[in-house]
């Protein structure tokens, strides 16, 4: 119980546990965590009671930290900016294991079979695979796209078959590494376009998309027929017009597909781009309040919630996917960095960094359901991610 005593909210946790010294018989399906980026803490949360039940410190630089879950949804793997990889037990509320795996990391993913956790790194650029049980290093793939030149890696996503897809910002390529033999990954390279900044895999695991910063368009690979290579969709969406400045890079993840269409942030335009998810042709655009950062579909696909880059990061807009129109504009707080839907989407949690709050909204009525204190919260990650392809 030493580790639990170390957590700040130990008292609360003990109440939850019922009796000190025993882990309660409970599932983790309604649990999750909130990154407190400034202080290297995470707050553990329960989405049924809409409350915090624990807090864990000593996690290093958590700016831009991201989280994936073990397939039993009990353990969270946190990838910190400083290259720290921490494994957290949601039930015992403690750090199980922590390694410093690189100098500068940007996120990670977990394999289809749950055995391999992969981190993507900016410097030295590349990916590293770890045993999810022990966090022992299994293998690495340096992103050396030309002899002696290493690229920052972005957009890492798990692909069925214990593969991972990712993009090389400096190399302009998409790489797919097959970890069927975790110690000897096999990598295939595909030219993608100028400066891919992030990537996503569709919820069915079939398509990998890499957003491009250096040109208008998105690179797309059909993972069922990878030999066909990457092609470009939504090309020239800027129509040659001058780009607006981008004060924060958008993020892509597999929640962008809803109602048969993909909803994607434009770069340098205050628009959400909409493409048919079978033909990949543009079907429309939605004008929004700023440079979109996260464009996230609710679990049922009926709504798309959008937050924005500085200086419009106090707004959040909701698009109805049936009409393709904005149905709600909210001001949840100052510097809204992230959003996360509860597993079936009746509520959404938003982090308002500069208000030191997490705010919870009802997705049907848009009523505010509550809020939680957190120290400069950024990412919110619920355990329901454990069962999703591409995370």
């Amino acid at each position, binding site marked *: 119980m030493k580790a639990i005593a170390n957590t700040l909210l130990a008292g609360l946790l003990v109440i939850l546990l019922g009796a000190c010294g025993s882990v309660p018989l409970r599932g983790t399906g309604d649990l999750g965590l909130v990154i407190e980026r400034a202080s290297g803490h995470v707050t553990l949360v329960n989405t049924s009671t809409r409350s915090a039940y624990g807090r864990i410190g000593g996690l290093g630089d958590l700016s831009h930290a991201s989280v994936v879950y073990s397939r039993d949804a009990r353990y969270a793997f946190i990838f910190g900016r400083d290259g720290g990889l921490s494994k957290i037990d949601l039930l015992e509320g403690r750090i199980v294991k922590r390694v410093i795996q690189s100098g500068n990391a*940007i996120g990670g993913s977990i394999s289809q079979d749950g055995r391999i956790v992969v981190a993507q790194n900016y410097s030295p650029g590349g990916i590293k695979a770890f045993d999810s049980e022990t966090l022992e290093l299994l293998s690495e793939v340096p992103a050396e796209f030309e002899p002696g030149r290493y690229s920052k890696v972005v957009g890492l996503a798990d692909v069925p078959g214990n593969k991972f897809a990712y993009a090389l*910002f400096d190399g302009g390529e998409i790489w797919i590494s097959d970890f069927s033999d975790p110690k000897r990954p096999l990598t295939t390279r595909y030219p993608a376009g100028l400066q891919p900044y992030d990537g996503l895999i569709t919820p069915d695991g079939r398509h990998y998309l890499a957003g491009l910063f250096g040109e208008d368009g998105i690179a797309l690979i059909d993972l069922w027929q990878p030999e066909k290579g990457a092609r470009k969709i939504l090309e020239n969406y800027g129509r040659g017009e001058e780009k607006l400045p981008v004060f*924060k890079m958008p993020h892509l993840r597999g929640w962008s597909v809803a109602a048969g269409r993909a909803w994607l942030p434009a770069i340098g335009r205050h628009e959400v781009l909409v493409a048919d998810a079978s033909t990949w042709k543009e079907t429309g655009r939605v004008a929004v309040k700023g440079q979109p950062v996260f464009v996230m579909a609710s679990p049922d696909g009926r709504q798309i919630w959008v937050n924005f880059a500085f200086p419009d990061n106090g707004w959040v807009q909701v698009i109805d996917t049936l009409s393709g129109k904005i149905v709600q504009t909210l001001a949840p707080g100052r510097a809204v960095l992230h959003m996360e839907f509860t597993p079936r989407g009746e509520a959404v949690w938003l982090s308002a960094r500069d208000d030191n709050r997490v705010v919870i909204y009802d997705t049907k009525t848009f009523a505010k359901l509550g809020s939680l204190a957190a120290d400069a919260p950024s990412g919110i990650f619920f355990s329901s991610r454990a069962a999703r392809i591409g995370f």
Partner: protein
Amino acid sequence: MNILALPFLFLAGSAIAIAEPSPARQKELVHLVRQDCGSCHGMTLQGGLGPALLPATLAGKPVEGLVATIIGGRPGTPMPPWHRFLAEDEAQWIVMKLMAGFPQ
């Protein structure tokens, strides 16, 4: 005027005394750099999509060039222009603080 800042101003060949931002504004600028520049340069300024902005990595670079980068951005890279939010004096103050070790 910050004592540490003086040599850099002279180095840059511009001994003009810049107006030091008010304490309240300094606080805002520190927040902006750590949080919003931090989304690309890292909150600890050790680099991310953008390069590290630490004394060691900036040492020897001309102040004016760095100020121009902040104000005007670098076309063709993700570094955006900040002139809508920062006066040139403020960008200069930021550069000098970055070169000396940025406040928390």
